[in-house]
């Protein structure tokens, strides 16, 4: 049982031992080789899951829309990603005549690099993590802003009006939705007391290794807003207006073909995978879980989150650009800010650690009691903001109806002699 649950760790230790002792490398060289191997394994994991995800997504969305999906290549169409890959490789690699060649050709590479870079800090099982940064969460956010640059490079480098429009939309969306994402991550960091992803998982795990209270129970509202802004950050439906084929052809990657296009595609799916893994770590307790080995739990939970992404994509229509901005700036940001302030006060008033209680006063409570208090607060904030939003929307609708009515009356008066 122990062997199975620690399989990844044992394997990596074995490889590290092999390199150090049997091949007789110096410690420095051995570290370098081990790190390089780890990077290769992580990138391969991401690329393979990209292939798998394209197939699963097409199947899931097809089922939701009452279709069959890919079923010709291999059993159940399982070889479809392979066929797609071959197709991508054999396509002509075009560059527009008036494109900025360097920028145009570098953009897909940059986007893939930034998408893959987030895997460096995501822990997949105890001890199986690229590097445990003590600013892990912050690192993820910073890496996310790098892909904005890549999209701007693609949009500008293509020298195409639609590509530029798509890039502008993308930047407006990604920069905007970074704000609620950040605000809700801060709430999680406040509760866990650390920015390291491993410490955040440990906070959701009991001392004996069994799963404790996941953060989604503490902060249901933060989890919801993080999920919404995560979908927007990865530019997935219903927030895929930056590559809306019916409005701006395909947005920033309209000029790309062949493997360069595939790299954009890879960036998109790898980002979605990374967001779901981060959601799992931040809110669902990461790899903590009973019976099954930790890495299975990690992937299972992430799979559920990804399934929600696909489900939303299969059912929701695309939002307009003004709706996208209004949802972010007029609803998610104010709500998250209020929620964050309340969480700050609640965490200070009801600390769970004795040291904090001694330093700032407040009532020492158990984690369960703190979870209950924060849960109630979150739900209250959610209900109040929803009712405020619905009241505002109702007022707007009534005003519009009144305006129409007045216009109609004026028209009637004009027609009547």
């Amino acid at each position, binding site marked *: 049982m122990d062997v199975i649950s620690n399989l990844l760790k044992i394997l990596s230790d074995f490889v590290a031992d092999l390199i150090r002792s049997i091949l007789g490398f110096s410690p*420095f060289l051995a570290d370098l080789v081990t790190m390089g191997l780890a990077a290769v394994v992580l990138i391969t994991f991401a690329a393979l899951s990209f292939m798998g995800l394209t197939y699963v997504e097409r199947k899931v969305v097809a089922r939701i829309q009452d279709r069959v999906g890919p079923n010709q290549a291999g059993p159940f169409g399982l070889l479809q990603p392979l066929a797609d890959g071959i197709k991508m490789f054999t396509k002509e690699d075009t560059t527009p005549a008036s494109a*900025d060649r*360097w*920028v145009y050709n570098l953009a897909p590479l940059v986007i893939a690099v930034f998408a893959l870079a987030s895997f460096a800090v995501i822990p997949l099982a105890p001890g199986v993590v690229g590097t445990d*940064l*003590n*600013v892990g969460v*912050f*690192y993820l*956010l*910073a*890496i*996310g*802003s*790098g892909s*904005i*640059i890549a999209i*701007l*490079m693609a949009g*500008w480098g293509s*020298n195409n009006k639609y590509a*530029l429009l798509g890039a*502008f939309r993308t*930047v407006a969306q990604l*920069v905007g939705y*970074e704000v609620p994402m950040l605000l809700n991550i801060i709430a999680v960091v406040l509760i866990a007391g650390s*920015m390291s992803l491993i410490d955040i998982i440990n906070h959701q795990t009991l001392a004996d290794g069994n799963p404790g209270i996941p953060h989604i129970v503490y902060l249901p509202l933060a989890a919801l807003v993080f999920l919404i802004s995560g979908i927007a950050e990865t530019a997935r439906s219903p927030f895929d207006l930056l590559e809306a084929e019916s409005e701006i052809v395909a947005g920033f990657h309209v000029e790309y073909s062949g493997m360069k296009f595939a790299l954009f595609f890879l960036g998109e799916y790898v980002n979605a995978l990374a967001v779901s893994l981060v959601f799992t770590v931040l809110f669902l307790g990461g790899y903590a879980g009973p019976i099954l080995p930790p890495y299975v739990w990690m992937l299972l939970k992430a799979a559920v989150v990804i399934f929600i992404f696909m489900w939303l994509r299969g059912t929701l229509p695309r939002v307009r650009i003004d709706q996208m901005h209004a949802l972010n700036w007029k609803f998610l940001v104010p709500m998250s800010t209020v929620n964050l302030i309340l969480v700050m006060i609640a965490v200070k008033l009801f600390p769970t650690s004795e040291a904090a209680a001694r330093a700032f006063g407040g009532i020492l409570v158990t984690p369960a009691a703190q979870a209950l208090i924060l849960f109630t607060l979150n739900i209250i904030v959610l209900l109040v903001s929803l009712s405020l939003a619905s009241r505002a929307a109702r007022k707007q609708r009534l005003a519009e109806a009144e305006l129409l009515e007045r216009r109609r009356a004026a028209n009637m008066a004009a027609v009547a002699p």
Partner: protein
Amino acid sequence: MTIQQVVFAVLAVAVIGAALFVVTTGNLFRGALMLILVFFGMAGFYVLLDNGLFAVAQVMIYIGAISILIIFAVMLTRGMQAMIPRNAQATGAAVAAAALFVAIFLAFGPLRLTVDFSAVPVLSALFRTETARTLGDVPWQYANQPVPETYIADFGRALVNINQYLLPFLLIAFLVDAVLAGAVHLARQRKPAELIAERREIAEEEAEEAAALRGAASPEPLPQGAMAATTTQDH
């Protein structure tokens, strides 16, 4: 040579190369991209100094926000691609940079040029020292011990400590608030009457400017159509 030195050398070459490209290129967009590379290199230096927080903050703020602002400004400038930018300050900037480099080299290089600080009132006040006689001898606060494990928490406490950086921290918060309020004010929904008045104002200003420009050559007033034409332009 340790691995740190190798990494430092690679980063330094990349940063200096990219910075030279930024100041010599005629293509502003590529210049902005290279500036991003410079920022990345600086983040790398922070990593070498064992300060992950500042490295990540550098990436987040300089690349995630400021660079994007610069790129947007470049993109929204009319006629960007056809333009051949000229820079009248290039010579002055080069001289200033060279002078600064020479000063740093003289002070910190093998020569250790001596400057009597106590003799110059500004310098003695600035560095609050009577003893430092060499620029290289200024008691800079070097980090001569490893960065402590709790540096993030220490940094956070220093920002809210009234004896340390509370005032600048609050001032920055105030500034950010003011900027946000200003942005909301600029982007607010305007009534048609307001918009018309605004456009008329802009048109009048432009007409005045045009008249002033033309006034030097010919004192005759603008033709009637000019104002209408400027109103329908890009505002």
